[in-house]
């Protein structure tokens, strides 16, 4: 069971218990809720009356249970009715739009302008107080909530491909609404429903408290509070019970819907928030070592990354020299991005380094192990020594800050530059990355730039601190071909302008690798399978996976593409031996049994295949 599901148990059980209690009220051995015993009014708890007796000598416990029945019946009843009405209107309005939208969604929104109280007052004044008028009033009151939620969800769902697929299939619109859209708008509806139940209980109690709700002698919690409030000094317990019951039930409901929301919402944050915000133990002393003469900029050795018990990256070893561009290539799930992120200490909170080292040579010539640094030490390196360009520039730039400010921030994080000098530097950077008219553009917000220019701005942010190691994570993937070519050209330009800078270029596109990199590291399922100079690897791959990848690119002119059968194994179902073995045309028993060691078919080259000599 998922953690988020597990957290549903306690509030779920309490809510179920409360429901069971009120549903079973008629068959429980309770005393008559109307049975008065006026001589013993305000008696405290006793064996016969566990919670005591009220101002009429009636049994408080049975009134509490029956009161809950009335309160919950009204709350759940109106929540359900409003859900039905609101869902219908929201579905119709969201799916058909146009005039239908006007007469459903927009019409319902008028209710929002009416003070809720007035609505209840009017309904009760017209129909008289009582359970059903109250349900009607609350139903009208809450219908817009559902309509809005369902409308929004419907609009979202209706543009999804599987709905279009149904339309393309010739399915009747009503059928699409009920069979395809309705089930998919249910999760937000469910959350909304639990919210409404809680809120309706508050309003019901308020209206009963004002004498506009449930009609005595039928008890409801609001009514009981109203009655007890007068005698607060005489019998304070009478106020305590219904208040506790009411607040407790609503509280549990709120908890339940909170947790329901996180269980149903795939984006739910179940991990412990942002760990980087928390001070973790005492500051570890940095242990810089002197670097050997020709030490690479970055030397990663046997680095492993895991999420709890799942190993996502296993024993990665690679190095980047100053001025060298290392392409990290692989399919989704190969661990290439994680390896890149680990070098900046920006791994998601759920992941951690579980082994290995990453020796980085700093400007001052000393080496430190990135794998051992704490957040603060890592922060000092970030932007200054090591920078990163992210894939989705639109999401990676803060939408509410101007481009110029975001670039300036990257400068001021490590220098004391300010004022004119700072603006000049920002303009220079923007010009360097090819943003036209930088003096004007630095005042633009990210959304005002085109995709290509956003990526340029992102690169400007990354190179603002003159980093020595630039990690580019799929920087061109989301771009159109002509724009991708521009950005690749920009990277090529950067390499020429800053000869000492090393670069790790993470991509899934072999063709891009061919265009940009000096060396290539091919990853598969969390492991490095092959490494070597680009030209050599592409002309003669020494690993069956690399070979298959190259053959599957529809560039060869072959009538039929080479397809690799199957799919990348999932982290929790990794094959024991060679991870590529299940999809490999050359795999033997031996491959499946034992993970292959790195082999060096040539100087500067590595392959992790048992049979590289036979099959490549």
């Amino acid at each position, binding site marked *: 069971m998922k953690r988020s599901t597990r957290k549903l148990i306690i509030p779920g059980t309490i809510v179920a218990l409360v429901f069971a209690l009120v549903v079973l009220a008629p068959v429980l051995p309770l005393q008559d809720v109307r049975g008065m015993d006026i001589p013993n009014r305000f008696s405290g708890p006793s064996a016969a009356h566990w919670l005591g007796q009220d101002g009429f000598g009636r049994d408080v416990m049975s009134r509490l249970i029956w009161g809950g029945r009335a309160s919950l019946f009204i709350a759940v009843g109106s929540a359900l009715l409003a859900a039905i009405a609101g869902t219908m209107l929201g579905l119709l309005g969201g799916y058909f739009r146009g005039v239908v939208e006007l007469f459903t969604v927009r019409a319902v929104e008028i209710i929002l302008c009416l003070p809720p109280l007035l609505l209840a007052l009017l309904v009760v004044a017209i129909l008289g107080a009582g359970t059903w008028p109250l349900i009607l009033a609350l139903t009208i009151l809450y219908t817009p909530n559902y309509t809005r939620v369902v409308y929004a969800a419907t609009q979202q769902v209706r543009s999804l491909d599987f709905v279009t*697929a149904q339309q*393309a299939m010739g399915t009747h619109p009503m059928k699409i609404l009920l*069979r395809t859209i309705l089930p998919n708008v249910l999760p937000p509806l469910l959350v909304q429903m639990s919210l409404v139940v809680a809120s309706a209980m508050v309003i019901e109690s308020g209206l009963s408290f004002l004498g506009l709700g449930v009609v005595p002698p039928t008890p409801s919690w609001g009514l009981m509070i109203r009655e007890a409030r007068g005698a607060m000094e005489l019998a304070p317990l009478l106020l305590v019970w219904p208040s506790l019951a009411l607040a407790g039930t609503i509280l549990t409901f709120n908890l339940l819907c909170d947790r329901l929301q996180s269980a149903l919402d795939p984006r739910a944050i179940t991990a412990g928030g942002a760990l980087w915000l928390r001070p973790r133990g005492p500051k570890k002393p940095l242990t810089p070592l002197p670097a050997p003469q020709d030490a690479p900029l970055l030397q990663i050795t046997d680095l492993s990354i895991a999420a709890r018990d799942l190993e996502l990256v296993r024993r990665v070893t690679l190095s980047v020299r100053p001025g060298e561009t290392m392409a990290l290539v692989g399919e989704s799930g190969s661990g290439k991005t994680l390896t890149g992120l680990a070098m900046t200490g920006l791994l998601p909170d759920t992941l951690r380094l579980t082994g290995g080292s990453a020796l980085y040579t700093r400007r001052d010539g000393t080496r430190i192990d990135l794998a051992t640094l704490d957040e603060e030490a890592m922060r000092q390196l970030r932007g200054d020594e090591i920078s990163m360009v992210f894939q989705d520039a639109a999401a990676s730039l803060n939408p509410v800050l101007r481009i110029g400010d975001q670039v300036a921030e990257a400068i001021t994080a490590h220098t004391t530059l300010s004022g004119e000098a700072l603006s000049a530097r920002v303009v220079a950077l923007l010009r360097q990355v090819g943003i036209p008219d930088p003096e004007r553009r630095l005042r633009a917000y990210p959304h005002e730039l085109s995709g290509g220019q956003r990526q340029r701005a992102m690169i400007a942010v990354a190179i603002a601190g003159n980093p020595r190691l630039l990690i580019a994570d799929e920087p061109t993937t989301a771009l159109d071909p002509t724009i991708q070519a521009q950005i690749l050209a920009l990277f090529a330009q950067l390499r020429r302008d800053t000869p000492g800078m090393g670069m790790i270029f993470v991509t899934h596109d072999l063709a891009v690798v061919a265009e940009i990199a000096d060396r290539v590291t091919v990853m598969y399922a969390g492991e490095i399978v092959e490494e070597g100079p680009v030209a050599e690897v592409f002309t003669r791959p020494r690993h069956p996976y690399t070979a298959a990848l190259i053959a599957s690119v529809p560039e060869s002119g072959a009538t039929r593409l080479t397809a690799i059968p199957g799919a990348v194994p999932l982290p929790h179902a990794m094959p024991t031996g060679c991870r590529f073995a299940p999809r490999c045309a050359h795999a033997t028993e031996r491959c499946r049994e034992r993970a292959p060691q790195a082999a060096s078919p040539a100087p500067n080259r590595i392959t992790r295949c048992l049979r590289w000599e036979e099959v490549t």
Partner: protein
Amino acid sequence: MTHHTPNAPLIEASHLGRNFPQRQGLLGRARDVWAVNDVSLSVAKGETVGVVGESGCGKSTLGRILMGLDAPSRGGVRFDGRDLATLSGAERRKLSRRMQMVFQDPFGSLDPRRTIGAQIADGLITHAIVPRAEVNAEVARLLEQVGLPAGAAARRPHEFSGGQRQRIAVARALSTRPDFIVADEPVSALDVSIQAQVVNLLMDLRRDLDLAMLFISHDLHVVRHLCTRIVVIYLGRIVEEGPAEQVFGSPAHPYTRALLAATPSLHPRADSADGVLPGDLPSPVNPPSGCAFRTRCPLAEEACARAVPPLTSVGTGWNAACIKATPGGKP
């Protein structure tokens, strides 16, 4: 590659235009924003037409219009001789048996809450392709056809990988035994090794079922591999169309040439950086006058700004919309 002799076209679009009026300010006049402008094309049985262009060029809108999912503002679509615009809702739904669609996003194209068997069966049931009793058997057959085990029918989409989902989506599209399929970027979201599986599947189906197919993509390599004819679109208009070999072999329009140059290759040419097209795609809200491409075109001259260049023939069944069009020409 085999040369198809063009049969009578199954689907024929003439002078399609799709306008999304956009208001400037609130009470301001609506401005015409043409997502698709004056596009004519046809697809015959057994033919695969590739539509190539960058994002926002209108290629997806074109696909939706051909499917009848969106109505054109101008022009019309004839399917097997019948004008889609004249059909009633019920007739249109009936006709939809013969035209199906495969989408880009393998995660969004399947309903996460229903079993894939049920989703494939939808078309079978809606159009009564097979008797009710044989639906399950037919679903199993379709699954096998796309290379999945028949037992997969009872599972839900989240249990499948992206490539498998895309194959399920193809199975669903095939369920109604269509004559025409619009494949809207069906492999763009897939990993390279998986992409090849789906491309191969589509090729097999076209061959086996004699399907007419419109293949929308921004990946020139895939399009070149799969398609018989190519349509290149820039800002809603066709700039070049013709047989795949000609268009890619010796592109006539400077944009096609730039596109080819910009596409990274495993075997990069030394001069790759020279062909980089400057600037961004112009906004469709405010397109340049005359030839929309002139703002980025290395060959642009004054005349380009004057009028939208018409599609003119540069070869048999090969047209380009450029006053300086030269097949395979280098600037």
